[in-house]
């Protein structure tokens, strides 16, 4: 009974963390782009006269979206048109359940893993769920029954499918180095030290893999350097026929993808919840010092470290989004098939050679 309750609490907590952070990602995006462009950014939404640097803006946006007309064009395929945004939303939202937020927390004789789904095939699970979002893109284009949205949906599907190959291949090198697909095992491996002082993070063992993963996953998130499926500024994209809350769900899915990519980068390549040199009983510095900490503080530091890393990678992705212009479509395909995929194959070969030499 109590175990079920704990599991339920973990699911809800992970989902709330995910959704709230996504909501504030919109705020981060506005503010960060503003600071990059010498502006101030949205700061007017107030709550009883308090403005607090625009922190209420996401709620104002949400309220606006909810009260907009929920418009379904008469020529659309009604059921699919309504179902498509929910599909994209759902399959992105479940991915968070496989991400480890921290080590095992012990209170009152109970051992609580700060991760909801500790499955053997964690990486495959997330890749599979992210592939399912293709249906949201394709179905919305198809169900809107409009030529241009159909073309947008096809563009989106082609892009997502081709970059998924590079995404999967870039992770194979990592799986070879940390021989597991289980997220908690991968994070545990990254807690070790290299040469006795360097944290054994994935980025140090797989620098090329990390770079390919970053680029391919940003293409998966369909944001600006790779935003051809939606092309919000001039091309007509797959969600043209959506308005109000359903459009908001697509937007929200985009931001959720940014967040899940940041989580994946953190977990796979940047040590997950590990703080350098922090073991289960406190800091053991390589230069000899020690700082013992109680269990609760250690877990707190881990969760904090995870959050800081995730927010840093969100920051990085937003920076990329506001720095680069969009790819041309043929460049996009060339880049995916002729550059990223050979490069990730090269990465696998080089990893294999180095591993067999070092053995």
């Amino acid at each position, binding site marked *: 009974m109590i175990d079920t309750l704990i599991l339920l609490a973990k699911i809800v907590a992970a989902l709330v963390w995910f959704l709230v952070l996504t909501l504030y990602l919109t705020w981060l995006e506005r503010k*960060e782009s503003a600071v990059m462009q010498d502006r101030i950014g949205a700061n007017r939404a107030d709550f009883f006269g308090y403005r607090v640097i625009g922190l209420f803006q996401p709620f104002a946006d949400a309220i606006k979206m909810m009260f907009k007309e929920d418009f379904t064009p008469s020529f659309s395929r009604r059921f699919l048109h309504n179902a498509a945004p929910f599909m994209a939303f759902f399959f992105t939202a479940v991915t968070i359940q496989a991400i480890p937020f921290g080590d095992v927390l012990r209170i009152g004789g109970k051992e609580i893993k700060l991760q909801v789904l500790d499955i053997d095939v964690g990486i495959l699970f997330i890749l599979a769920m992210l592939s399912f979002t293709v249906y949201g893109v394709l179905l919305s284009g198809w169900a809107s029954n409009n030529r241009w949205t159909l073309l947008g949906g096809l563009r989106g599907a082609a892009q997502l499918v081709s970059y998924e190959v590079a995404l999967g291949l870039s992770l194979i090198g990592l799986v070879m180095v940390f021989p597991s697909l289980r997220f908690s095992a991968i994070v545990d491996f990254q807690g070790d030290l290299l040469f006795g002082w360097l944290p054994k993070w994935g980025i140090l063992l797989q620098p090329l893999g990390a770079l390919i993963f970053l680029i391919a996953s940003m293409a998966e998130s369909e944001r600006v350097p790779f935003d051809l499926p939606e092309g919000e500024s001039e091309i007509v994209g797959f969600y043209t026929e959506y308005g109000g809350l359903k459009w908001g769900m697509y937007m929200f899915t985009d931001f959720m993808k940014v967040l899940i990519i940041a989580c994946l980068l953190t977990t796979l390549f940047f040590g997950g919840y590990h703080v350098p040199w922090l073991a289960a009983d406190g800091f053991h510095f390589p230069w000899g010092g020690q700082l013992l900490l109680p269990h609760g503080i250690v877990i707190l530091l881990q969760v904090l470290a995870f959050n800081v890393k995730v927010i840093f990678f969100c920051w990085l992705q937003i920076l990329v989004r506001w720095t680069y212009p969009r790819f041309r479509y043929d460049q996009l395909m060339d880049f995916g098939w002729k550059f990223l995929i050979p490069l990730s194959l090269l990465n696998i070969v080089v990893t294999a050679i180095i591993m067999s030499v070092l053995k």
Partner: protein
Amino acid sequence: MLKHLGFFIEIVKGSIITIRHFVVNMFYHILNLFGIKTKRRGAVTRQYPEAPIQLASRHRSLHRLLQRDDGKPRCVVCMLCATVCPSECIYIEAAEESDPEIQKVPSTFIIDLSRCCFCGFCVEACPEDAIRMDTGEVELARYGRGDLVYNLEKLLG
């Protein structure tokens, strides 16, 4: 492959520019947050409604009609402004004036600001210096088009 590498260098260079902007602006924002005044600000934004901007002295804003010493409009209904107006938004009707020096005064003088393009030709054309655009009023948004039709009383202020 080599071409892609060249692109990659340019891509990194581009991100360095935006990161520099971000870091420098953030530095000034944080200094200002802690109450430290700096000559340079973190953003060029002006908080408009709270901190209005000083208009230039020759800025063309809402029209006004000037009056003679006795309070009558200076306009002599020569129709030059209504003729020159590219938006055709000035409508004038004349009335007799007993003073032979003046002869005509406007009985109606309507400027439809919803059509006016604020070119200032009417001011240039007026031989009597009867119309000017120097009220400094630029916040001219209204809820209805009718509220933007300014008649003689409104223009005389």
